């Protein structure tokens, strides 16, 4: 079964092409790093995949179901770089995490004791239970992101879509964050699509790379990424040492190295 299938997707905004002829298949258990410079259409692609934006052209299937008919939303976990939540929203961290269960609820969508227990468990697992009664708006950026991750993971989604999720985290929390995500991929077979600029941090975890710059520049396994002429052409020869290390060790020894394309933009 394909987790995601995109056929001939195009999107333009105010006459400008943002995405062009995107074809993509993501299978169960894949862990994909989505790379691309600013303005390359990464977030737009993700929003279209989730139905938050409508593409002018193309077809999307989620879990072999057309997006317009897809309704098993508890299978999807989505975490944004920074959610735009109201500054004075009177919701505690616990309330926010529990809201994640709303996709499993029918009718009046009322939460029960089992939901509270589930919320407690995931918050303890992600080490955010000690500030469960604090207002979400009063938490630090890192704490908020941890709470939102707990909300994303509470349903144990089969497909995680993470849009630069670690930006608000400090370096140790970032490492812990990627360890948690990777464990989900390894132990539960969770499929992950991760938008990132930090290839060095995720290089050791992912098994595929998707490079986007309005169209797909490269999509394939880590080994193919390292041997790909398209990748070398796009990134330029000066990142060859990084790719060599990825090829031989499956990871990158350089801390927080960013890839740059020919125009010097961070990818």
């Amino acid at each position, binding site marked *: 079964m394909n987790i995601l299938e995109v056929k001939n997707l195009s999107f333009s905004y105010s006459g400008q092409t943002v995405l062009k002829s995107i074809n993509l298949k993501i299978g169960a258990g894949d862990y994909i790093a989505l790379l691309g410079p600013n303005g390359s259409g990464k977030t737009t692609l993700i*929003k279209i995949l*989730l*139905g*938050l934006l409508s593409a002018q052209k193309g077809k999307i299937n989620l879990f072999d179901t057309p997006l317009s008919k897809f*309704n098993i*939303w*508890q299978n*999807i976990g*989505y975490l*944004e770089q920074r*959610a*735009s*939540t*109201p500054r*004075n*929203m*009177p*919701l*505690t961290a616990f*309330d*926010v995490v529990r*809201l*994640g269960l*709303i*996709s499993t*609820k029918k009718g*009046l*969508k*009322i*939460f029960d004791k089992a939901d509270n227990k589930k919320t407690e468990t995931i918050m303890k697992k992600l080490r955010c239970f000690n500030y469960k009664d604090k*207002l979400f708006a009063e938490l630090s950026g890192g704490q908020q992101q941890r709470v939102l991750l707990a*909300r994303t993971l509470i349903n144990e989604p089969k497909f995680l879509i993470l849009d630069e999720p670690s930006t608000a985290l400090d370096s140790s929390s970032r490492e812990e964050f990627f360890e948690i995500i990777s464990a989900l991929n390894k132990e539960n077979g969770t499929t992950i699509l991760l938008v990132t600029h930090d290839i060095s941090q995720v290089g050791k975890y992912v098994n595929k790379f998707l490079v986007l710059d309005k169209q797909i520049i490269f999509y394939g396994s880590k080994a193919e990424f390292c041997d790909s002429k398209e990748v070398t052409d796009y990134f330029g020869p000066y990142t060859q040492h990084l790719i060599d290390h990825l090829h031989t060790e499956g990871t990158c020894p350089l801390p927080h190295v960013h890839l740059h394309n020919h125009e010097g933009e961070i990818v």
Partner: protein
Amino acid sequence: MSFAEFLSYGFVQRALISGVLVALITAMLGVFLVLKRLSLIGDGLSHVALSGVAVGLLLNVTPIFCALPIVMASSLGIYKISKNKKIYTDSALGIVSSVGIALGLIVAALAGGFNTDLMGFLFGNILTVSTAETILSVVIFLIVIACLYVFYNSLIATVFDENFAKTAGIDVEKVNILLVLLSAVVVVLAVKTVGIMLVSALIIIPPTSALQIAKKFRSVLIYACAFSVCATVGGVYLSFIFNLPPSALIIVLNLIILSVCALIKYGKTRRIN
């Protein structure tokens, strides 16, 4: 005049029943609108209500019934315009608000100029609420309460994070449309209580007061309702004592409550720091 004597009048009873129900639903809806930064929708829609009321007076139809469909259609218009993001929401509200007043003035001029009825709708007159309007208040109150109960968690999720709500399978479009339509209905009802010029205060001030001191969503709703009801009952009573307009007193009392809540919050913040 004692409070018991005050309550013995039939028109006071109608005013209080209608006023309390309007206070409750404006406060509850106001919480969602304030958090969604849509609180000025009350202002825009109440100005549109002026056109509806003027048309009603011109055609000799009960003004509220005439205003209702016009305000509801406008609320959908505001939502659609702001959703397309071609025009900012505050700009859309400003445009609808001014056009509402302009059309109201034109219709009033066609009807032979302003009359006391129209002035009553501009500044409200809770003491002239009829039995039919009281019954309408009860019906609209029940509809609003039922909708808020059914969509409570969906509304919270949508107000908190619309993208999350959509990816949680919530029909955000439906929830947003429900919110603006309920606002339209409540605004029309509240026009009689506090008047076109003061309706938005009833939507904005009690929730803002509650947000100063309450930490839980449910507490915010309860505090907002309590503040709004106290200000309404107090305003109507004081209008009898001091022979002043009840709508103005309701708003002034709401403002006093907001000031007290803001002071409490300031005191708490200082203690923490």
